[in-house]
């Protein structure tokens, strides 16, 4: 254990715990899980979750029940670039179904799948708070908005280039 958390990360955990009153370090759980996920190929393995629990003095079950509740936690490995395309009403009105269809055919995968080379995962997600800039997707820390098939192609190209560099 304690294989994945570097000293820097532990220092960051301490800073997060400091935001709360004495004895309330459980509040750090979600921020620390997000940090751990970002550091561990964008998913949470049981080992990583156990490590987070140990760091915060929580029982494993306290970590699992949170990790399984929130949609941003990946409990299975995902591709290097995760396309999270919004499919809720306002985005539907602006043609998100066509965008999802286009991505599927370009990447040759269905919703929820990862390309065999491990580069891309396609997800259909619910409203991301970008309804006025639809259709859109989340890609890592940023949003890509006003999507068209051409823009999607450019994004795929950009991701491929990034992975080669």
């Amino acid at each position, binding site marked *: 254990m304690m294989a994945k958390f570097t000293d820097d990360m532990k220092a960051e955990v301490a800073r997060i715990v400091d935001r709360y*009153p004495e004895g309330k370090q459980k509040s750090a759980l979600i*921020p620390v899980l997000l940090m751990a996920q970002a550091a561990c190929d964008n998913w949470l393995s049981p080992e990583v979750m156990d490590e987070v629990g140990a760091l915060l003095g929580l029982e494993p079950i306290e970590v699992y029940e949170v990790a399984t509740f929130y949609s941003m936690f990946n409990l299975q490995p995902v591709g290097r670039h995760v396309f999270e395309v919004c499919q809720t*009403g306002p985005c539907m*009105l602006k043609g998100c179904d066509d965008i999802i269809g286009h991505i599927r055919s370009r990447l040759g995968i269905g919703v929820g799948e990862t390309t065999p080379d491990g580069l891309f995962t396609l997800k259909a997600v619910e409203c991301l708070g970008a*309804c006025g800039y639809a259709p859109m997707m989340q890609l890592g820390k940023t949003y890509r908005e006003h999507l068209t098939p051409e823009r999607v192609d450019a994004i795929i190209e950009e991701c491929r280039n990034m992975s080669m560099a």
Partner: protein
Amino acid sequence: MGRKLLLEKANVPGIRGYDVYRQQGGYAAVEKALRMTPEEVVEEVKKSGLRGRGGAGFPTGMKWSFLAKPAGVPRYLVCNADESEPGTFKDRYLMEFIPHLLIEGLVAASWALGSNRTYIYIRGEYAWIVDILEQAIAEANAHGWLGKNIKGSGFDCQIYVQRGAGAYICGEETALIESLEGKRGNPRIKPPFPAVKGLWDCPTVVNNVETLAAVVPILNIGGEEYAKIGTGKSTGTKLISACGNINRPGVYEIDMAISVEEFIYSEEYCGGIAGGKRLKACIPGGSSVPILPAKLLLRTAKGEPRMMTYESLSDGGFQSGSMMGSGGFIVLDEDQCVVRHTLTLARFYRHESCGQCSPCREGTGWMEKILHRIEHGQGRTADIDLLWDIQRRIEGNTICPLGDAAAWPVAAAIRHFRDEFEWHVNNPEECRRRNYGLAHYADELVSALP
């Protein structure tokens, strides 16, 4: 041009940074607040008539005055930046473009409520906005607006940003508190209300981003002056995020004194329906509020122009009205299918139900399945009645209002567009081939405005 109190300066170059914000008069509201007693600040907010901008529209000053103040127990202010209601993206705009306005409002509100640790709970997907807020908080600290003994007042306050991780339900205030405590976002049974027992069992106020930002102009111009803007019990300005089939989607600050017709068709706001089409329907206040067909949207059942106010949008109750809600304004053109749109919303609520109450957990799943069946040409007439029955059994029978929020869109869609549902049932082949709903609901008033 309406009066702009929140976004007036949002486009000033460099306003995201402290220096420009301060040059533009920023933090004057905090200076003013610190010269007042906390009670006086609460009083000023009461006078303004400000109503919570998160969806429920509860008077903010009253909410603040309910906060319990037992001696020796900390009190907390929590800013709700979870913004996950479909159609709503106004808080994001405010935080992204003029973050110091929120920080300034938070400092003033923390003073009024006696919160020494104030949290901004923000939806996890808004990751880049976290950086913007952290930067603004660091600047406010560096200039003495946060930290120990703020500007010699003896008041200590720190603001922390807490990220969520993807859960609409965490916008509900007690679920938010649970999440902030590091747990699943399961809403609590009320009472006790957060004002008595909230974060870590201490008295807590949860307010929306826009509500807290509005405290700044209220202090600057005075509560009475603020109350003069708008109409009736809808005082001040309101941010509306407009989306769907309009020419100019985006975030607009409106005086609550304009008509819905003006909002949709004028160039200052939505700029009319995209592609020269007609308006068919609109959900004026975020996905949870009832959808209205064009004719009930533009005119109330009494034939009066419908206004962009809390009162007017809800005029006629659920029979013929809707709600201001969160200000998420979703517009459907004449080619859009109401059944399909409602299906996406039903799927959303099924996905977001926390699962604690069976009417919500099971009912949202049933509604999605039945709507899916109807939309894909496999529905029966009895399904429409079954849908009606299910939504009715959810409403009012759950721990938190998400159950109602899931029931209302389905109820309103059936209430106002029943023949579109029937058309799907009676034309299974055609509705598999094309996805257009019935256009006869569309507005004839499209050219009424100059």
